[in-house]
């Protein structure tokens, strides 16, 4: 177990970069450094960026790189202890009582009667991350879109992230033998509290530049011809410089290229662009503005 635990720590920065590339995620050096530091220091990594730049993909890639289970906690407003940590399986407990009743064993004190044993405990993501897994690496815990959860949950998360232990009154305190690798993502729809951010290493995931995006396309959409990829990425890069309400992210680029491939296009013509622009721009005002100046931008390339 020890050797596996140190495996994550033994990865060098270059190894991380290469490893992520193998998992079809193109990371630049500063990101690899941040991941490296997060692993070495045992601190959570806080990934902030616009929607669609690849934060969740990164977490998945890291999980595969470290050969660990990926445990994902999707945040939303009103997320509470019962959905995030644990819940008792009430129906099963009730059935157990009925069973004991039917068998006439209700008055005996026996092992069957322990209604609050781990058999009846439903483990939710945070508890799963803490539970020991003897033959595997420490899991990767992805707390996705933390900005969608409310402040009550943030306070609760702060407690867990400091000690990695959960107290269940009926059972006791469960402590993680190995700290999981924690990744927190946020779309910046609200400011996360300083107390939480301070515990983490911060990384802002930005839109990629031309070369990087070409690499991403080649990795993820190998069926697209080189010409098509170049033209498409060039278009998206110049589109991002425009005055849009929501700039298209990397996932939009990939969607668009996949749709072009699906339509058997080798080159982008104005007509095709008109038809498929909805894969890139999701706001009506943006679409109108793009349709007005689209010709100009096509010509630029």
């Amino acid at each position, binding site marked *: 177990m020890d050797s596996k635990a140190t495996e994550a720590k033994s990865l060098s920065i270059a190894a991380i970069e290469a490893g992520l590339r193998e998992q079809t995620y193109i990371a630049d050096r500063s990101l690899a450094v941040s991941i490296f530091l997060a692993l070495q220091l045992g601190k959570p990594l806080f990934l902030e960026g616009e929607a669609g730049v690849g934060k969740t993909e990164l977490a998945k890639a890291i999980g595969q790189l470290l050969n660990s289970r990926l445990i994902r906690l999707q945040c939303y407003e009103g997320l509470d202890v019962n959905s995030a940590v644990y819940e008792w399986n009430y129906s099963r407990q009730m059935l157990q009582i009925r069973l004991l009743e039917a068998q006439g064993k209700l008055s005996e004190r026996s092992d069957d009667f322990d209604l609050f044993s781990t058999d009846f405990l439903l483990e939710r993501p945070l508890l799963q991350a803490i539970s020991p897994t003897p033959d595997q690496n420490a899991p990767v815990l992805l707390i996705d879109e933390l900005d969608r959860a409310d402040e009550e949950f943030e306070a609760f998360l702060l407690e867990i992230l400091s000690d990695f232990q959960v107290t269940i009154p009926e059972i006791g305190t469960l402590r993680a033998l190995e700290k999981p690798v924690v990744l927190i993502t946020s779309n910046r729809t609200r400011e996360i509290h300083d107390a939480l951010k301070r515990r983490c290493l911060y990384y802002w995931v930005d839109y990629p530049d031309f070369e990087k995006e070409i690499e991403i396309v080649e990795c993820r959409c190998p069926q697209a011809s080189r010409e098509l990829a170049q033209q498409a990425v060039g278009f998206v890069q110049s589109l991002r410089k425009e005055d849009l*309400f929501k700039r298209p992210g990397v996932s939009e680029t990939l969607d668009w290229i996949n749709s072009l491939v699906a339509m058997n296009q080798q080159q982008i013509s104005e007509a095709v662009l008109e038809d498929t622009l909805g894969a890139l721009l999701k706001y009506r005002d943006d679409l109108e503005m793009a349709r007005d100046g689209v010709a100009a931008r096509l010509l630029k390339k």
Partner: protein
Amino acid sequence: MGNTENAQADLFLRNLLLFPRFLRSSGLVVTTAQILTLVEAFSFIDFRKREDVRSLLRATLIQRHSDIKMFNALFDLFWKAVPSDKKSLELGQLIQRARSDAVEAPKNDSVGNDEDVEMEELLPTWRRYSAVERLRYTDFAKLTDQELEEVETFLKDLRWSPPLRLTRRSAKTVHGEKIDMRRTWRASLKSGGFPLKISFKTRKRKLRPVVLLCDISGSMESYTRILLQFAFVLGKGLPQVEAFAFSTRLTRITYSLGHRDMNLAIQRLTNSLTDWGSGTRIGAALKAFNFEWGRRVLTKSPIVMIVSDGWDRGDVALLAREMGRLRRSCYRLIWLNPLLGSPGYRPLTKGICAALPHVDHFLPVHNLASLEQLKFVLEDLSRIERSGLKGVSDSAF
């Protein structure tokens, strides 16, 4: 005969309408709705009978038992002060007369100690409130520095309570919509698994966030200080307030206003904002807000208030578009215009005309009374439904 009677009744009514304001100056809350009821009911009684008038006023203006004593004392003073000759009164004169009567009252009145004590209590509040009475209706632009300070103290006393919004969290309640299975089950363990007591839960409600966009351009100069104070007070009173100032650029001022000392905060702001006194481009400012801050600050469907006189040098079409976008992302959009307080003002500038169809409430903000009115409007927001616009879909919440 009928005519002179009517004329007398009119005159009496006009004098009588000073009484609610008299009550207000002594600290009682009297709403316009109550005054309207009073006017309606007036036609049914004989105004020459003093006790009938007392009953009328008490029935329409007083709503709490604890106010009755004060009401009686004030009514007596008022009745004495209203002249028997057929002239109409000014509130200031009325208060003066009443005050002089009150000072004499302990000596002349033979009713008893109770009333004497009340006169004593009423006097100091009168001195303070009669000054405010005048200040309440004076335009901010016309106040002297000292008067501004007095108004500021009253600003601080206003309590804001915007409507609540449903959150996705539940809290336990005694009676509710949903059964709280967890709690019910835990309680049932005591009775061998049979749920004797059923617990309920319901969705929690939180105060809506408020977003304030203040125009600080040259035309708004005389109002800027008091409006910044308004922003400050709002920020103190409500949990989630985001404030922005704009003229040619948009600046977020929420942190600056978070300082404990109001004057210091405003001082800091005045020093840091370099936009003062230039022309306004409301459309561009709103666009900057929507693009940069919209997604961060307009979640949880807030109430957005724009404070501006509408003098715009920028693109009107842009203004209309951004107003539409803003309207669709918030709970209610309120435009506060200090010019609305000026008699004879008509919102005719192109900027305002373009923006108005997207606005839910168009309100004045030129004096203390208008801020009090704003407070009432905020409390009632959830009761007034949003009107639909042609071709624009309504916000669902």
